[in-house]
Structure formats: structure tokens, C-alpha cells
């Protein structure tokens, strides 16, 4: 469709964002993300993840530093419809009399004339997006009648219909069953393979190595960022979460009867656990069994 759009990127350059009472929620944060990326934003509650998202979306203006999206200032990027946002469930009022297809059509508003009367292309984009997330048969349901996972898929369809190259997702796995979680992850992977940049705020540690190629560890500032394999380590996580993670380690002698020094480490904040296996400081992420029931 519209492949002549600018290459997606997010450049956060030494930003500080303060509340109206002067307390800084984000301080001197710097990182950079490019196309064909799924990047996780990981941090505890109250670490300023939402503030960072709001700043990237232009809700908040940094008191120092700058954010550039696809090389443009935030406002210009938003005007061009470069950024789509998948909200947390709590941010949306599910009582509104809007149908599934109405929600997805909202993704097209930036493409429509001032009266927002949908053209053929808009209807086609909505059909296609609904089809892609497998929600076509629910299109005339009132949005509040859907399950948590279905709602998420509808909002992803809206981002698809919007045609944005950059998608921000705020806690997409909260209140979602395991099966839907896999479906959403598959969809995110496919969107990445089309060149998009997906930035996902999550505290579901276990799924991060599963589908994110980049990680930003965050607590008021960027603690570490880079490829998941080298950044999403036990040491970095301990720094990001302090003592707030459950930590289970089975060392070599507990696991094996030989001299094998490889060990298993499980980190969890009660969502899906992160499992590491290997010799000390050479541990790799293990993809735990994803089936729901034994």
C-alpha cells in the first residue's frame, strides 16, 4: 500500500520529564530504535514507563532533551499518522455504543476528509485488518461484549488499519489468556517482518525473550538497552527490579549427578517466569513449555 513512508525509528535523546509538582518521572533517558524491531520496555510499576509512552505520544513535553520519530518532531510525526497506540484496558470505556468495526474504522480517521465519511479504501482496510486478527465474525458486536484478548486483537486491527509504521502497545498481555497471547505474539512478529517498529511495555518477563529482539530496561531512566540476548540478563533485571522478583535457582549439583556446572534460574514477578539455563554467566534464555494445561 503506502510503502513510500519514512523509515520507522524512535530516538529518545537525554529526556527529562517532570510532573507539575517538579518531581522528575523520567530523568536523562536515552535510547534509539530502528525498523523491523520488537522492543520490550521492561520495568516495575511506577518506574515511569507510562510517562515515557506519553512523552513519545506527545501527551507530555520533556523539560529537557528531545524525542524524534522517524526523524521528525513528535507533533509532525503524529500529524502524518506514523504512530499507532494500543491502549491498556483500563484506559478505554467499554460501555460506549461502538461496534468492533467502528473501533477499527477509527484507525482510518487520519486518512479521511473532515466529515470522516469512509471511502471504499477505508472499508477495505477495515475488512482486511479484522480478517488478519481473526475478528471478522465479531464485527457487529458491541466492543464491551468481547473478552480481554479479543479486545486487544480489535485494537491491534485498528493499528493495522491505521497503517502506522510504529506501534506502541501498553501492557498487551494483561488479562489475556495464553492462547490469545500466542496469537498476539505471532501477529506482532508478522508486523515486524513487514518492517514495522513495535514498542511493547510489559512486565511479563517470560515472554520477552520469546518475541522481542530488543529490550529497554527502565526505572526513571534507561538502565540498559540493546539486543535481548545480551541485555535481558539476570544482573540487569536485578538492577531494574531491585528485590521485587521471585528468584529460584537450581545449581549444577541439584540438577545433575555429574560435573556439569550448568544451572537453571527462574525469575518471575508472578506473570510468566523468565527461565535461564547454562553455566554461570553463559546462561541462555529457555523457552518454557507454552501449553496451558499439562
Amino acid at each position: 500500500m503506502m510503502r513510500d513512508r519514512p523509515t520507522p525509528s524512535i530516538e529518545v535523546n537525554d529526556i527529562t520529564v517532570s510532573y507539575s509538582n517538579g518531581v522528575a518521572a523520567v530523568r536523562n533517558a536515552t535510547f534509539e530504535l530502528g525498523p523491523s524491531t520488537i522492543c520490550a520496555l521492561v520495568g516495575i510499576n511506577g518506574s515511569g514507563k507510562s510517562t515515557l509512552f506519553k512523552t513519545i505520544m506527545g501527551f507530555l513535553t520533556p523539560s529537557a532533551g528531545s524525542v524524534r520519530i522517524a526523524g521528525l518532531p513528535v507533533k509532525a510525526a503524529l500529524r502524518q499518522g506514523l504512530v499507532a497506540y494500543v491502549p491498556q484496558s483500563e484506559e478505554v470505556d467499554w460501555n460506549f455504543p461502538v461496534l468492533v468495526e467502528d473501533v477499527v474504522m477509527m484507525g482510518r480517521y487520519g486518512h479521511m476528509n473532515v466529515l470522516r465519511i469512509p471511502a471504499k479504501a477505508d472499508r477495505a482496510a477495515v475488512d482486511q485488518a479484522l480478517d488478519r486478527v481473526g475478528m471478522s465474525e465479531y464485527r457487529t458486536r458491541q466492543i464491551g461484549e468481547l473478552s480481554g484478548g479479543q479486545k486487544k486483537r480489535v485494537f491491534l486491527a485498528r493499528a493495522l488499519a491505521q497503517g502506522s509504521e510504529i506501534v506502541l502497545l501498553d501492557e498487551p498481555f494483561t488479562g489475556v489468556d495464553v492462547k490469545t497471547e500466542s496469537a498476539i505474539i505471532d501477529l506482532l512478529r508478522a508486523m515486524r517482518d513487514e518492517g514495522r517498529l513495535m514498542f511493547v511495555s510489559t512486565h511479563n518477563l517470560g515472554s520477552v525473550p520469546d518475541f522481542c529482539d530488543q529490550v529497554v530496561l527502565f526505572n526513571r531512566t534507561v538502565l540498559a538497552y540493546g539486543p535481548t540476548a545480551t541485555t535481558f540478563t539476570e544482573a540487569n533485571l536485578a538492577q531494574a527490579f531491585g528485590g521485587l522478583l521471585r528468584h529460584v535457582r537450581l545449581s549444577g549439583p541439584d540438577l545433575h549427578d555429574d560435573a556439569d556446572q550448568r544451572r537453571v534460574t527462574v525469575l518471575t514477578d508472578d506473570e510468566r517466569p523468565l527461565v535461564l539455563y547454562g553455566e554461570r554467566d553463559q546462561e541462555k534464555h529457555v523457552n518454557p513449555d507454552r501449553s496451558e494445561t499439562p
Partner: protein
Amino acid sequence: MLLGPAIDLLLEPFAYQYMARAIWVSALVGAVCAFLSCYLILKGWALMGDALAHSVVPGVALAYLLGFPYAIGAFTSGIIAALGIAFVRRLTMLREDAVIGLVFTTLFAIGLLIVSINPTSVNVQSIVLGNILAISDDDVTQVIVIAAISLAILGLKWKDLLLAFFDESHARSVGLNPWLLRVLFFVLLSACTVAALQTVGAVLVIAMVVTPGATAHLLTDRFGMMIGLAMLIGAATSALGAYLSFFLDGATGGLIVVLQTLVFLAAFVFAPKYGRLAARRSARRSAEVIR
């Protein structure tokens, strides 16, 4: 023939110019207020609507006293109320409902005081309870101008308003300014409150900007349809209320609001999906499935 006199009797109100005018002006006001009510009830801003309606009273009283168009006075005091609420809210840790209650009763009291000190300038009753049957030519012009402009803006912007209220973040991401749209909505609400003041009075304006939307919400899951139904209910009940007040010799405002409540009750019981009967039916059906 008995039919002839009966029809004559039913048509009698239309023989009086003031009655015919009251009927269509009421319908117009009812329709615009109903349009706004759809947003108001979804956002839970009903109390805000009530506050605005009461807050415009001192502005109207002063306008009559000093002899400038009452719409300007009402509008100014409406804005003062909105700013006052925002101001007190920011500077104290009081909850929003307390602040709204505080500000609007204060302004309403000031209004009543002004009116009572200058009893000749304006009749308290016509502000508090409305008096559409005695509406002046100038006031009719004001109401028409307000209603026409409001309807035009709402017709252009209703989808943008819905999006901004439904999902503010997304509204931004498609280039809308949710803050500006919210201000626009409250400006329209103040303007229409002023228009409705003449019809039903300050005390009952709240019903005009809540009941039609609440009724329509029980009847549909589509926002466009909800607006259409609400406007139909608002216009029809307002026109009928004005018409019936000729025979019953009762307050027009009271009649309009009672009619709106009757429609609401009908929807509450009989609405196809969200009515009580439908709820009973589906409960019975699921009970049968279990059995």
C-alpha cells in the same frame, strides 16, 4: 358530528401564534440538548451539566438588569463557573463533585439574590422554571442562532468528539486535539443550556441534557443511531410538552421532563436488548440451557 369539534379543540393551540412558536422552539431546543446528552451520559458528566445550568442564572439576571442580550451574560457566567471549578479543584484536595456542588450553588445563590433585590428586572420564575409561552421575539432569535450554530458544529464534528471521548490517546495519534474538542463540547453545552433555560428553566435543564441520551443508549449499540433516537425523543417530547401545556394549563418544563421520563421508563422495560424484559428472557433461556 362529534369529530369536528374534537379536531377543532385539538388544533386550537395552533391558532395562537405564541403557542405554535413555543412548540417548534421547544422541539428545536429539545433536539440540540438531546444531541449533547449522548456525550454527557457516556462521559458521566451529568453533574457538570447541572452545574452549568445553575451557574448561568446570575449572568442572565445581570443581563436583564443591565439590558444586554441574556445569552452573553449566561455564557460569561457559565465560563466563570467552569474556570472556577477547575481552579478550586487544582488548588485543593477536594473531590470533583464537592467542588462542582460548591461552585454552582454559590453562583445560583448569587443569581437568586440579584433577582430578588431587583424584582422588576426579571421574574425569578421565568429563569428557574422557564416560560416558553411568553418568549420574546429577541429571545426566539437568540435560541434559533444558538441551536443552528450548535447543530452545524455537532454535525461536522460528532465523530471527532466521539473518538476523543472514547480513546484520547488514539485521537491524538490520528492528529486530533482532544483538549480542544473537550473545550468545544463544554462551550456548546453552555450555549445550549442557555437556550434551554427559556424552555424548561434552570432546574430542569439537566433532564434535557441527560434523559434523551440515557433512553437512546438503552435502545442501540451504534453511536450514530443513538444520536438520531435521542434527538427524535428530545424534539418529540418537547413539542408535545409545549402543546399539552395549553390544555393542562401546567408548566411546560415540567410536562416536557415528565414525558421524557415516561419514554425512558418504556425503554427501561421494553428495550430489545437492554430492557428488563429482555434481561428476563435471556435469564430464562440460559436457565433452560442449564436444565
